[in-house]
């Protein structure tokens, strides 16, 4: 949902590099997961599990890490703006 992310930035006023990184962190899982043909295959196996399955399970961990990064950056962003114009 790119429009949601962008809409958020619009409401918050300025687009800073930090906010772009936050948006990318949140947007990356959508690209990875909706691009099904990039992972619809059996090889390589991992511990006997086809690629299709372990790759998506791996993305649970990757997207969690990305959301955590986004969360930490967001905290930084809000602190920087303390008393500022965060609407």
């Amino acid at each position: 949902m790119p429009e949601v992310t962008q809409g958020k930035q619009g409401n918050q006023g300025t687009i800073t590099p930090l906010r772009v990184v936050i948006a990318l962190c949140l947007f990356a899982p959508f690209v990875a997961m909706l691009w099904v043909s990039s992972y619809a295959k059996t090889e390589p196996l991992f511990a006997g599990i086809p690629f299709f399955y372990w790759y998506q399970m791996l993305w649970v961990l990757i997207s969690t890490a990305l959301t955590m990064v986004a969360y930490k950056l967001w905290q930084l962003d809000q602190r920087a703006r303390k008393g500022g114009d965060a609407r």
Partner: protein
Amino acid sequence: MKDGVNGVALAVFIFFFLAVTVMGFLASRWRRAENENSLDEWGLGGRSFGTWVTWFLLGGDLYTAYTFVAVPALIYTAGAAGFFAVPYTILVYPLIFTFLPRLWSVSHKHGYVTTSDFVRGRFGSKGLSLAVAVTGILATMPYIALQLVGIQAVLDVMGVGGGEDTHWFIKDLPLLIAFGVLAAYTYSSGLRAPALIAFVKDTLIYIVIAVAIIYIPIKLGGFDEIFAKAGEAYAQTNEATGKPRGSLVPGDAGQWTYATLALGSALALFMYPHSITATLSSRSREVIRRNTTILPLYSLMLGLLALLGFMAIAAGIQVKNGQLAIPQLFETMFPDWFAGVAFAAIGIGALVPAAIMSIAAANLFTRNIYKDFIKKDATPAQETKVSKLVSLLVKVGALAFVLTMDKTVAINFQLLGGIWILQTFPALVGGLFTRWMHRWALLAGWAVGMIYGTVAAYGVASPTQKHFGGHSTEIPGIGEIGYIGLTAFVLNLVVTVVLTFVLKAVKAPEGVDETSPSDYTADAGDKGVQTEMPKLGADTH
């Protein structure tokens, strides 16, 4: 399969069931507030839950017994297509990270209990609010019914309730008892009961999955062996369709379906009233953001759980009804006592969401139908009373549904419910970020989405059903097979945008917005709630 009652498993099951029943009734004393007779207390647990309680509550709420039974069941019957639940739950969290804190803030500021409350406040439109409320109630009812289907599956495998030839009353008695108890403690304790029971439910589920994912593959000769056997099974021709039963990896034709289902379901999940109820019960805005970073643990569990579907095939489980595959796998592979633990996990896994869903539906009725249209001057005590009664009615309705109609009816309605609830997205999430859209345009978009979705779903045939045979059909203009809900959602958006231009051009009345921009970033502070975060710039008073 019906080889008599499994006594040990049943005893363990009953033990856990009794334990959570006691907890359910005691829950009303947990974090008790001074004013019990308000909807904030009964229906939102006093809006007091911290990070961990919210985590258990949301986890217990979203990952239901039906999920545990249905996801592996889908893998068992069709293979890769059933795994869409994993990308679906991956996409949910970045999505809610962006909009849920805003909903929390504005609801906290204005005392909103339901999504319809917000829509009414934002757009000044009772009609739009009613549309959202009715959609929410319609989508939730079959979901509650499906929780019962989950309990039934477990009872069946344990040999309780007997076969087809048993008298109907004896057959349904265990379900009636389970449901009666659930209704009683939800009535007396409100949201606190499922919040407390969710601890037990999730602990049991995590233990069962951890054991299953290690123990069963060892017994079956490792994952190589499991996937090899599953691959063979999928390659065999399905007599009903004349095509292979399924596949280990989605083919070219299935990829659009896979992606649209994942995206559409992710967009829909937090439109469901019960997800919002669990969200609004949290103590602060930060609790929600923090939860989006720890909730994915459930997605990992769901992925592992899905793999059980392959194990059921490899273990040679043969069931006509896919829903029974996993309970049957547990019964076959585990020692009796542990099978009892696993069944208890699924059974309790049905009680928690059923309780939250009935509370959420009751809140919608009370706030957005009863108070808005029937008795405008209702006091908080009256609201609570009505909500309690409606939560009972909703459950009785779901029970009647399951007992009188075929299971497939509940599943069909659940399918439709997902399509329907997605149509409230533009009003709710759109409304959180912008007030550009016109209230009448939103209402029209919603109606178009609902009608298209229902008609399209009606037109899908499957080998076993003439109508409502699936969730996907050809996307007009693209020609690929995609999730009906998402197509309807896109139509809905297009209609909303076009009509907004038109209505603005003719200067149709906009309706009063009772919220202000700062409400959407306000954190706890108004009502003496503590927060660990520095306050945001534009502060609340």
